[in-house]
């Protein structure tokens, strides 16, 4: 009751509806743009209502792609993005779970040292060490491969750290009960810890999947073979037209399709995601 009052609620709804409108606006623009015939935007101010070409544009994007303008058909790029995002996600989750487990449930020499080694990567995005990392990947012969696309991005201090935080909140007694029940470390990990971490895993799954899906600079650098192009870099390719204009109607259709999978992932896992995030936060 303290927080309820009619005018306040009205005002709050107003702010939120406006806010949602602003937040959604860019994607709305993309959707609108993807329904117009070529050239509509280039010749004047962008329309705010859908045009007649939706079906045609999406059909073009899906079936033909823009292969002749530098990007392979979108299906392949979506698949590459998916493989890369999944590889990064699963890789990050598994190695982070294992290392957090080691750090929390064991005591051993250099534990803190290892923790810092891992933690240091927390805020060193690939952009900062891009040139030498590229060199390493090239030396290992991993250019133009899914391994090259994913493995270098798999180390994850964020996930390790969040799992560590979560493991710290797992009641001590569970592990003790498991030991009294005769479970060894890996059995405990598999039977007790993993199932308990499921909301956290889900939250990180969402974050990592989106991270992987949205990678842009890295695939741009290490793929030269269109076989390995991902959708986000494909879009960037489509908008650099040189002396001719990007085909905006198709670019926007691609943008919409490219945003769809991560949005679906987020919506699908929203409950777990929000819960996982907010719980580890405390």
């Amino acid at each position: 009751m303290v927080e309820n009052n009619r005018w306040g609620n009205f005002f709050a709804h107003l702010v939120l509806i406006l806010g949602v409108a602003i937040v959604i606006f860019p994607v709305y623009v993309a959707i609108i743009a993807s329904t117009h015939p070529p050239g509509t935007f280039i010749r004047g101010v962008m329309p705010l209502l859908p045009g007649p070409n939706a079906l045609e544009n999406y059909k073009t994007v899906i079936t033909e792609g823009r292969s002749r303008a530098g990007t392979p058909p979108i299906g392949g790029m979506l698949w590459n993005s998916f493989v890369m995002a999944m590889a990064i996600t699963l890789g990050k989750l598994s190695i982070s779970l294992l290392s957090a487990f080691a750090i929390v449930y064991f005591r051993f020499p250099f534990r803190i040292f290892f923790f810092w080694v891992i933690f240091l990567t927390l805020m060193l995005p690939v952009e900062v060490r891009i040139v030498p990392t590229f060199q390493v990947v090239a030396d290992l012969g991993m250019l133009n491969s899914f391994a090259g696309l994913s493995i270098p991005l798999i180390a994850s201090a964020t996930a390790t750290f969040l799992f560590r935080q979560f493991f710290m909140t797992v009641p001590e007694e569970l592990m003790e009960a498991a030991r009294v029940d005769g479970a060894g470390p890996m059995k405990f990990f598999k039977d007790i810890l993993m199932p308990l971490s499921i909301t956290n895993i889900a939250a990180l799954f969402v974050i990592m999947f989106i991270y992987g899906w949205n990678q842009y600079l890295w695939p741009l650098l290490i793929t030269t073979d269109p076989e390995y192009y991902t959708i986000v870099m494909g879009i960037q390719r489509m908008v650099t037209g040189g002396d001719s204009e990007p085909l905006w109607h198709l670019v926007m259709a691609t943008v919409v399709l490219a945003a769809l999978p991560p949005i679906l992932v987020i919506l699908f896992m929203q409950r777990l995601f929000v819960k996982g995030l907010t719980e580890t936060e405390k």
Partner: protein
Amino acid sequence: MQTKRMTFSSKWLPYALLAPQVIITLIFFIWPASQALYQSFLRQDIFGLRTNFVWFDNFNRLFADPLYLNSLKVTLVFSLGTTFLSMSVALLFAVMVNRMIRSRDSYTTFLVWPYAVAPAIAGVLWWFIFNPSIGIMPYMLKGFGYDWNHRSSSTDAMILVIIAAAWKQISYNFLFFLAGLQSIPHSLIEAAAIDGASRFKRFWTIVFPLLSPITFFLMVVNVVYAMFDTFGVIHATTEGGPAQATNILVYKVYRDGFVNLNLGSSAAQSVILMAIVIVLTVIQFRYIERRVNY
């Protein structure tokens, strides 16, 4: 650092568990980082055919270069601007959503998903919206008598990249603020109401101070995001222009390294960035550790 009061005992298992993470970290982070350090002392031609060891030349050049110093300044303005904008908007949304009971989930859904949009794509979208000739925003702004052109106005350009970068981060901040608001015991607000504090006063004297741990956490996260993860936004909108007005450090590393192939300078910049990052990491870590015990 804490462990469980009781731990498993095994000599080799913890190392085996850590191995994948540590090996990847060593190969793809520590090694390249040390390479960057080494390269920052070199001058090479762009094809890598000739190499000279030049000691601190690259660093000296950087610190003597007004453009690098400018980039530092630009980064500061951009990071703070992005952080402030996305956090204040997110806080407003979170406070409003937190009042809702039935519609809370729906609003959350709508506000959460921009998080899924790639920065590079966000950049393209905002570029499109703000395009001086075909974009809807300049058209509308013209209606208000403002002649938008981020190609020739540094201010417009900065505003554009800040909006584009902040937009994406609103969702994330929103979630954390919402969680933070929900973790504030309702009884505190009730106690304040009984203590005669107005709605406004309750927010500023009780809620906001209690959110400060989250606010601080988000501040660091957002500054780091703005400093490093906005590459795609800049690349797709202003490409650092006009006249380097939006050339943030990461973008400059990329341009000098991968576009201009000035590897020595780029490596030196990487080293400086790493130093900044390490400082931020330490601050963040200390802080989080403290908060865990709070």
